């Protein structure tokens, strides 16, 4: 089944509450996906710096990595994840240093994106990373009921396959094996057997080829086969796409303050001003896309 949520803020005054709102939305979607959960938040960023989201086992001493990486790297720990901030010019060096450390993996990178996911009941996952305290401009989240691959942290969503890019998926793709081979020939290294990771990588590749997020989603309609509702985030953008037969549910709401996505209306019921929001079901095979730059 799976549940997905997304929130894109238009009103700056709501930014300190992004995490709190997203956390509540994830909580309501526990019933659609109690296996595992994850979320990505686009928070504060600094020009010229990159944030690497790291993952390791429970109790891992992330702080020690500041020295390993050097170059003035700083670490903020959150349970099994940590965000390492370092000069963007030193990203490759930092990644090389981290590669020598056993048990630590880089799960996301970007100027503003932070990405957290774990096995467990979604509300517990949100709490362990203190999502409710996070602020940001937009974020996406996922509650998983696994179908295509095992219940592992790696198999949880979101998937990030490009800088400041992430994707959550409800559905299952039927041509991901073939697409995986095509992407691998183009240099993509898959971390999992998950079909959703391939969807993320496909969109990243299209954007690398010069397509905008909206255009990359248009391309997906031709190249991806199967069931999907995607919610995708980039540094400034937020996109939604459903497959042409609209197999998986989706509801959206928009006010002057935000654009919100939920697998079901229940997830949106607690949002401010929802009573008077424009609420609609996104149409099949139609790309919906918002960009902060354009706004």
């Amino acid at each position, binding site marked *: 089944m799976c549940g997905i949520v997304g929130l894109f803020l238009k009103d700056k005054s709501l930014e300190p509450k992004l995490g709190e709102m997203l956390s509540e939305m994830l909580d309501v979607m526990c019933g659609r996906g109690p296996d595992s959960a994850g979320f990505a938040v686009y928070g504060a960023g600094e020009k010229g710096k990159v944030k690497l989201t790291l993952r390791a086992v429970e109790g891992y001493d992330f702080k020690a990595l500041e020295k390993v990486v050097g170059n003035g790297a700083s670490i903020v720990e959150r349970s099994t994840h940590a965000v390492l901030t370092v000069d963007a010019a030193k990203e490759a060096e930092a990644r090389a240093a981290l590669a020598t450390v056993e048990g630590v993996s880089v799960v996301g990178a970007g100027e503003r994106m932070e990405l957290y996911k774990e096995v467990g009941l979604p509300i517990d996952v949100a709490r362990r990373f203190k999502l409710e305290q996070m602020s940001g401009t937009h974020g996406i989240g996922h509650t998983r009921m696994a179908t295509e691959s095992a219940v592992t942290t790696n198999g949880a969503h979101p998937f990030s396959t490009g800088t400041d890019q992430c994707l959550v998926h409800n559905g299952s793709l039927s041509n991901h094996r073939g697409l995986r081979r095509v992407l691998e020939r183009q240099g993509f290294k898959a971390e999992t057997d998950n079909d959703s990771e391939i969807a993320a990588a496909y969109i990243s590749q299209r954007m690398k080829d010069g397509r905008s997020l909206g255009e990359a989603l248009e391309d997906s309609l031709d190249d991806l086969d199967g069931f999907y509702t995607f919610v995708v985030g980039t540094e400034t953008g937020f996109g939604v796409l459903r497959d042409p*037969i609209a197999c998986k549910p989706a509801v959206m709401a928009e006010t002057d303050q935000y654009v919100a996505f939920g697998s079901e209306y229940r997830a949106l019921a607690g949002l401010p001003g929802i009573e008077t929001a424009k*609420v609609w*079901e996104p149409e099949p095979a139609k790309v919906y896309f918002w960009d902060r730059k354009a706004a």
Partner: protein
Amino acid sequence: MNASTQSHAFDLSSSTVRELNSALHALKEGSNASLWRVTNPRGLHAIAAGVDAPVTVEVDGPVGYYCGGMNKHATIHIRGSAGVGVAQNMMSGFVHIEGDASQAAGATAHGGTLLIEGNAAARCGISMKGVDIIVKGSIGHMSAFMAQAGTLTVFGDAGEALGDSIYEARLYVRGSVKSLGSDCVEKEMRDEHKAQLFERFKTAGVDGQIDPGEFKRYGSARNLYHFHVDNAGAY
């Protein structure tokens, strides 16, 4: 409403849907007509599903899946939008939605009337078996798939593959139809059909405002009913 109408209030922020439905299910066909006001539905599922009594249920806000499902006798009024499968398998009664309805509205319903003020998404009236569905907006793809009986009246447009593999239901569409499904064809609009449409207009409260002649009728070409001898060579 007469003076003997009993009114009950149910706040779903302090009570559960199960409590509401248990109270509604305890009502029998002969029980006094009563009015149930439900507040804070917040998109919860299965609100007022399986009611089997001539009561009125007013829901003050958007509902989730299967609201009014299997309804018999009851009038259910929703002041908001409805999720997947509203009035699914309804037997009789009246379900009225002020907003939009999600997928599979009125699916498999045997009787009663489903009135949707806004749009209905994909698969509206799928496998309908006698219900009268009226949608003031537009409907999504694969609506009235394998529809067996009843009427589907659409004031707006219809999506792809309308009436695919349809049996004997009547489909009336005022706007455009993106495409017709297999074995679904446009049919002549005779006086009996215009009269039937006029009855639907009355239900929708727009009688006298719209000319039934603006609608087109679609139904079964009946080519899928029997084995076609030309296909004998395939066996």
